């Protein structure tokens, strides 16, 4: 035992002499762990919120009866079903605005709510008798008696003003007193169904029914009883949110994993170097009688301790990263999918353990070869501090072979496979193949350069750069990957932004968008608008919901107006697409729907509708970015005829641009803010852009962090190699090159390597962008994008790479410049 401790102490003395190296190792591991566990924290938090939302009032355990069309139905259907012996419980759901927050209101009937229907009965209502008012009455009783209660999670209740406050809604209504209930999803308030109907301005309407049991002897079918207005949805089919957001989380995970890999490059480099530098020490200890087993065990212990420590630091940092990114993630999940995710992290202990574990496992994987070499260390081999770099050169053949193999995989995947996972496999093999090719490519380029230049110093410069690239190859690979992914993601985001902005301009052609909060007043509002001289047209924006082969689809009715035929962006269409659709013979479908079911213009399409299923032709395909569901556009008359329950509260209004403000003001004055909601084009565009920006904020942030990791890798490699460079430099100094000139050349060399890497990263980055927009986006979201080139972005990254390299090389160069000649002389004296 004592011997083991001594061995450990000797091994650790290495780090004391090279604190930079230790720092590199710890930082590399910590950063890798931080990015990985940060992304995991975001995913876990989001999934936790989805689960809570799904579990809310039994969504995960009980089947539901949902309206076949629209989002709500007459309460009378509930009574009809109950009186026919159906064991159902009513739920109404909707969003309200409270102090600039969107809050989900869920109305329930505690009397019929099945036992075990999620957290409402078991956790929320059983939180015990509410004692805030000292009445001792149970929450169920308080929920049922005026003014009722609104149950929310602690975060939501605190944000709205705290327990027992009664915030006012945007539409003038007042919430019941707030109370805290555990296990509720974020930004959600649960109250009595009657109270919720009033808050949501939907008296007598319900959103769905929880189905506990249908009568055993069913004399009448559900369709008979409800006139086809309700359909049964099994609990398994309700996890749309989880499925829709899967791609988003897979993207996050992929980025987290990439960052982790880049981090492991650093760790592998640092450990490999430490092993080579400690080789004489290890040999001496073996000669002193420490067994190979004991030595390996102690090294394992050392590594585990360091990596656990780094894992703790990394996990804490991951928590910080996740906390910082969570608001953006939550905002984009809401913007894209309507998902509500808590704004504060609440993580299980298992997450923390996993963070430390991934650090330790990562370190062990990265150190595997070093540990193996320590185990098999030949006792009498001479110390070869530069052997590591030499091994890299020997490894290039293997790397080439692996790169060719990976490239073959990439081509195979591209030609044969489909699906999101295949997309990421493609991306991964392309990136790895490119990284493995990098050393050979650099050596090749430098060899060519060496042949092109004249003069011994210039030739030495390139020869030495070639020699040095071996030691730097891992760091340069990390830099290549980070730069390429940055270019790829940046190109994708900016291409998307350009496309999206143009698309919004075309699609949001109307000046005003008007929504009736009270559907009964919609016709009045439309009539009022029609009579105005400054209003050119009032176009219904009515919609209903259906499913096409199980895929949720919005059916959207449009009316005959140039606003559509002149502006609506079409990707592909038959001639006369608009007139065919207006005549009710054809439909226009969104890109998502077209891609998912391989529909092209001219193909037949059948649309399930309560007013009679409908067979039509696909007349055109249009872009519908940001919509996780499919969409179909049909003539508004067809919509009304086939979907009697379609939402008819919304209108797009064409107004002379100068009259926009007047119409908005007059409309609000005539109907009141509680009845009508009116938004101008500018505001909608702003909102859309904001959602867009927030959606990619996380991607861009992760991207930047990855680049920083690569920068650290480069810095670390240059710092650790600096010492080893002396034997190469001392002869030149002896031949008459000044220290100043040598230092300058060192700087230029680092910059040259970084520049070459950055230049190679550009084509790779474009490949990444192509894979993202044409493979991964299509699989994940259902839309394809044109790729635009953004050379100023590349320039920015090249400059950034150069700055990183120069900054990293500055310290070794500076110390070289100030190095006492004696030290350079000593190189010739030392035993090598």
């Amino acid at each position, binding site marked *: 035992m004592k011997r083991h401790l001594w061995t450990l102490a000797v091994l650790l003395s290495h780090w004391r002499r090279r604190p930079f190296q230790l720092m590199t190792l710890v930082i590399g591991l910590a950063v890798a762990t931080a990015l990985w566990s940060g992304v995991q924290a975001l995913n876990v938090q989001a999934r936790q919120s989805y689960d809570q939302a799904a579990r809310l009032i039994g969504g995960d355990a009980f089947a539901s009866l949902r309206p076949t069309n629209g989002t709500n139905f007459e*309460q*009378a259907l*509930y*009574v009809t079903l*109950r*009186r*026919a*012996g159906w064991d159902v419980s009513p739920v109404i759901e909707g969003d309200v605005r409270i102090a600039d927050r969107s809050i989900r209101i869920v109305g329930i*009937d*505690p*009397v*019929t709510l099945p036992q075990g229907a999620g957290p409402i009965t078991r956790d929320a*209502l*059983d939180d*015990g*008798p509410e004692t805030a008012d000292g009445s*001792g*009455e*149970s*929450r*169920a*009783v308080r929920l*049922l*008696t*005026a003014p009722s209660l609104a149950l929310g999670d602690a975060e939501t209740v605190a944000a709205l003003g705290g327990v027992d406050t009664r915030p006012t809604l945007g539409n003038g209504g007042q919430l019941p007193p707030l109370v805290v209930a555990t296990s509720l999803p974020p930004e959600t308030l649960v109250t*009595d*169904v*009657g*109270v919720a*109907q009033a808050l949501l301005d939907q*008296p*007598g309407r319900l959103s769905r029914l929880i189905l506990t049991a249908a*009568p*055993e*002897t069913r004399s009448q079918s559900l369709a008979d009883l409800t006139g086809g207005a309700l359909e049964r949805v099994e609990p398994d089919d309700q996890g749309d949110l989880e499925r829709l957001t899967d791609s988003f989380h897979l993207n996050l995970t992929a980025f987290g994993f990439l960052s982790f890999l880049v981090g492991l490059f650093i760790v592998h480099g640092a450990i490999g170097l430490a092993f080579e530098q400690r080789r004489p020490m290890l040999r001496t200890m073996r000669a002193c009688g420490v067994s190979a087993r004991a030595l390996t065990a102690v090294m394992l212990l050392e590594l585990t301790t360091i990596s656990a420590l780094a894992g703790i630091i990394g996990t804490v940092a991951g928590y910080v990263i996740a906390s910082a990114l969570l608001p953006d993630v939550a905002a984009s999940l809401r913007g894209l999918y309507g998902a509500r995710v808590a704004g504060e992290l609440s993580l299980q202990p298992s997450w923390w353990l996993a963070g430390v574990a991934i650090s330790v496992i990562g370190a062990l994987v990265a150190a595997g070869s070093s540990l193996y070499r320590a185990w098999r260390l030949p006792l009498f081999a001479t110390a070869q501090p530069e052997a590591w770099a030499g091994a890299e050169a020997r490894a290039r053949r293997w790397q080439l072979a692996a790169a060719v193999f990976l490239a073959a995989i990439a081509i195979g995947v591209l030609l044969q496979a489909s699906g999101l996972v295949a997309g990421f496999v493609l991306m991964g093999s392309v990136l790895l193949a490119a990284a493995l090719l990098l050393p050979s490519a650099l050596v090749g380029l430098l060899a060519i350069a060496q042949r092109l230049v004249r003069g011994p110093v210039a030739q030495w410069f390139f020869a030495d750069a070639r020699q040095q690239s071996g030691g730097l190859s891992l760091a340069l690979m990390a830099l290549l990957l980070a730069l390429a992914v940055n270019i790829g993601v940046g190109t994708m985001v900016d291409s998307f932004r350009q496309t999206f902005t143009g698309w919004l301009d075309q699609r949001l052609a109307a000046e005003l968008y008007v929504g009736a909060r009270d559907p009964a007043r919609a016709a009045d509002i439309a009539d009022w608008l029609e009579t105005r001289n400054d209003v050119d047209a009032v176009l219904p924006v009515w919609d209903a919901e259906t499913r096409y082969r199980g895929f949720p689809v919005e059916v959207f009715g449009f009316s005959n107006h140039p606003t559509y035929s002149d502006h609506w962006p079409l990707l592909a269409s038959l001639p006369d697409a608009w007139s065919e659709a207006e005549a009710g013979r054809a439909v226009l479908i969104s890109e998502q729907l077209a891609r998912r079911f391989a529909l092209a213009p001219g193909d037949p399409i059948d649309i399930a509708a309560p007013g009679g299923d409908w067979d039509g032709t696909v007349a055109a395909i249009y872009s519908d970015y940001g919509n996780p569901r499919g969409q179909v556009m049909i003539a508004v008359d067809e919509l009304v005829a086939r979907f009697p329950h379609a939402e008819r509260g919304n209108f797009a209004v064409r107004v002379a641009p100068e009259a926009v403000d007047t119409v908005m003001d007059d409309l609000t004055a005539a109907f009141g803010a509680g009845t009508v909601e009116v938004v101008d084009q500018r505001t909608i565009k702003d909102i859309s852009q904001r959602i867009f920006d927030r959606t990619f904020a996380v991607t861009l942030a992760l991207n930047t962090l990855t680049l920083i990791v690569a920068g650290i890798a480069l810095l670390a490699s240059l710092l650790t190699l600096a010492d080893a460079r002396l034997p190469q430099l001392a002869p030149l100094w002896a031949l008459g090159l000044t220290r100043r000139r040598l230092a300058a050349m060192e700087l230029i060399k680092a910059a040259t390597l970084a520049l070459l890497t950055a230049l190679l990263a550009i084509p790779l980055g474009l490949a990444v962008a192509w894979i993202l927009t044409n493979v991964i986006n299509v699989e994940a979201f259902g839309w394809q994008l044109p790729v635009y080139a953004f050379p100023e972005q590349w320039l920015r990254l090249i400059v950034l790479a150069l700055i990183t390299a120069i900054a990293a090389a500055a310290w070794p160069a500076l110390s070289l410049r100030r190095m006492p000649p004696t030290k350079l002389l000593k190189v010739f004296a030392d035993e090598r």
Partner: protein
Amino acid sequence: MNVRAVLFILLVFAVPAFAQGFAGLGTDAEGYSTVEPGRTFSFPVDHGPHEGFRIEWWYVTANLEDTDGNDYGLQWTLFRQALAPGEEGEGWESSALWMGHAGLTTGERHFSAEKFARGGIGQADVTAAPFEAFIDDWALTGDIAAEQAPDGDTMAEVAVNATGADFSYAMTLTTERAPVLQGEAGYSVKSDAGQASYYYSQPFYRAEGTITVDGEAIPVTGTAWLDREWSSQPLADDQEGWDWFSLHLPGDDKLMLFQVRSEDGSSYYSGTWFTPDGVATPLANDAITMTPLGTTDIDGRLVPTQWRLEIPSRDFEITTEALNPQSWMATTFAYWEGPIRFSGTHEGKGYLEMTGYDSD
């Protein structure tokens, strides 16, 4: 008397809050209408709900027999509970809560089921003329308009049905006789402290219909008994349960007896004896003796399913035996309720309900 566990909402949702008297019946009645002696009953209005009172029920039991002479019993009950005093209100704002209980007893088996509903939305309600009491798909309905009803009795002929897991029944109940008033002209006292309810019955129903057990339909006939009761605070704080009998005596006499048990072991007794022509004789607290003779273990609860009942002033002494001693209503608020046979000075059938026998 058949005071029910009616403050069921407290039990359904917050059992720990249930600390004052049996099923919260001993709670404060402030703000609710009070029960006073000397009320005049009027039909069909009194068949309907009495808003302002806290609790009310429509309660049917029937002793039935199939063609092979096998005995059965059934129960159908609808409870109304007001969560707040005064007008009940419309829609979801209604303060009325409804609970339905259904039971079916054979010699070997006992079935029970329950229903809950909010008032105000049409899921459960009672109307007096034509009479209809329903909760979900269970109903007790008459088909007689007010103007055609004899003496306003819209319940002279009613259909009753209920369905639960593995059982159902659909019966028709008919009578030519008027409802009878319990206690002092419908004023039924429950304790020395004066707690009371309004209480009338229809003990003279003939019953005919079909019961279904495990999918097998069995035609049955027999007698049935309707109880109607409403109050705002029918129990004293220290009363913890009761034992209630409805007995079909030979010669078509009818007898209702109950005791309400106090925590200190004492009981308050009451009863009413009806002749076939509806003449009622109230029985005072000291006129009745009730003695448990044997108990049945039902999941750890010792329930007295055999009794000796004595009314010395009327030369009445019988012993009762349950058709099925395991007639346990396994509802959210659970109790014993089932058909009985009796012998002694009088012989016949009846129904027994026992509450407050907890397993502790």
